[in-house]
């Protein structure tokens, strides 16, 4: 299945793209994407924290992804 990954802040600098398309096995979870991205972009591991949102809602590591989901990488936020 295809999912769309959005990068923000420092994750965009690390990955070098605003958007990344991944082709994953059916049943993949947020944790699987984290593992994939960390292997491909090791500096991801050095972030103070990394959260994920699926379709604009915070998601846990166990959340299963579906075809065409939009997964956003949320490094430490610093609004305000």
């Amino acid at each position, binding site marked *: 299945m295809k999912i769309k990954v959005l990068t923000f*802040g*420092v994750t965009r600098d690390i990955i070098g793209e605003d958007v990344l398309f991944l082709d994953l096995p059916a049943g993949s979870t947020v944790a699987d994407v984290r593992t994939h991205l960390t292997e491909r972009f090791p500096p991801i591991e050095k972030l*103070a924290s990394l959260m994920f949102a699926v379709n604009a809602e915070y998601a846990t590591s166990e959340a299963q992804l579906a075809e065409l989901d939009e997964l*956003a990488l*949320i*490094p430490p*936020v*610093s*609004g305000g």
Partner: protein
Amino acid sequence: MTDIQLQTTTLSEAACRQFVADNQAGAIVMFSGTVRNQTQGKLVLRLEFEAYEPMAIAEMRKIAEQAIRQFDVLKISIHHRVGVLAIGEIPVVITVSAKHRQAAFAACQFCIDTLKQTVPIWKKEVFEDGAIWVAAHP
């Protein structure tokens, strides 16, 4: 009642203030963030804010609605800006009206504290010799 906005242009404190006006209100508390000219002793040239926009708006709305449930307040306005901001400019304005001042202060502090924890907005501090995404690294 809540008023949530994410803007690329200068925030209007007057517009926020006007939204929360209410004949039942005895207290209005407004918090404005402003861009400081230094951080930890280092000169700041400007800040750059970016947001995951639809989620940032949704999360700001959740915060305002939570504050309305949790505190005895009337109206809440949360406006946040994105883009490049100079020293003295305003990244965020949170305005609350309430019958009594304790609730207005408590709700306003709750909103800004929670916004800084949960809303997907990122700030890059630009110095003379480089730039960093705030809080990204331990």
